[in-house]
């Protein structure tokens, strides 16, 4: 699909106290790969336009796709999408976009996902694409967030309890969950040195989050010995 097409907001679901997932119906949606994004274009009645990119946070459900949005303080677009954009209303979208920061289900090597805050969205899309397969490579998500109540996709992540091939570790930076043994703080080398996902196993690594977080984690991964071209990054800027 190329160019802008009109999508309709069919539902808005809660990810945290502030973040929402928007479920958009896009007639003729061709399907997408986990990690791809869409551009969203908003047009005000005076003709002013704003374009933003949002990662698709789930595999396509027919012609429905999902994006997950954290409202930025004083933001121009994200608070509108979270709080005001009415269900049943239309918005222009373009996509699916991107071919580098994607996970293809025919890959066989282990996958290490490192998420900072809302950077978890495309990585959970990858995790969900893996879970849709009957069998597949080992996945590990390291999810850095400030405190437990800011967690997105809680139901999907809690459903991993008891699995060893697809699992999630939390790295809380301000306030830990009850019973957590890891001291709070930013991601450290030991958080990313995980059995089954060491450089010797040649995993594919995907890192997504704010710029400083991505650079910090990508530096750790390369210092651990991962080849730079196997550490794929997406900075939010």
């Amino acid at each position: 699909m190329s160019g802008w097409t009109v999508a309709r907001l069919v539902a808005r679901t809660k990810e945290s106290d502030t973040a929402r997932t928007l479920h958009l119906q896009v007639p003729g949606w061709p399907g997408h790969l986990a990690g791809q994004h869409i551009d969203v274009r908003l047009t005000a009645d005076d003709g002013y336009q704003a374009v933003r990119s949002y990662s698709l946070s789930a595999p396509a459900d027919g012609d429905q796709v999902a994006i997950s949005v954290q409202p930025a303080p004083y933001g121009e677009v994200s608070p509108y999408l979270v709080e005001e954009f009415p269900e049943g209303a239309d918005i222009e979208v373009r996509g699916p976009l991107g071919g580098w920061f994607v996970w293809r289900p025919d890959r066989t090597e282990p996958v290490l996902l490192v998420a900072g805050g809302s950077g978890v969205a495309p990585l959970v899309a990858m995790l969900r694409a893996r879970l849709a397969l009957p069998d597949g490579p080992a996945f590990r998500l390291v999810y850095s967030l400030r405190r437990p109540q800011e967690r997105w996709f809680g139901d999907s992540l809690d459903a991993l309890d008891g699995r060893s091939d697809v699992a999630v570790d939390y790295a809380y930076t301000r306030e830990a969950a009850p019973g957590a043994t890891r001291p709070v703080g930013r991601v450290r080398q030991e958080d990313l040195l995980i059995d089954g996902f060491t450089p010797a196993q040649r995993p594919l690594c995907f890192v997504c989050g704010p710029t400083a977080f991505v650079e910090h984690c990508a530096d750790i991964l390369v210092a651990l010995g991962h080849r730079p071209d196997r550490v794929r990054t997406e900075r939010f800027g």
Partner: protein
Amino acid sequence: MPVQDGNALAGPLSEVFAVEVTSAWRLCPGCGTDSTVGALRVYTMGTAAVARCPHCGEIAFRLARHAETLWLDFGGGGALRIPVTG
């Protein structure tokens, strides 16, 4: 810093190219680093963007969208290698 990855330019580039360009490779003429367009470092000002080599910072290309005009400057930014079929 408002630095992003080349991934972020997939939408604007889709207005120019018939193929998905962020998975194209670019050998940097400045330092010899081979990287995909998706792995370039992107600096933006409004609706304009500068894509640079992730290693040496040399400019790969510049792109801007102003109203109905799309600007694309490949300057001396090195060849793109785009896998095609057939």
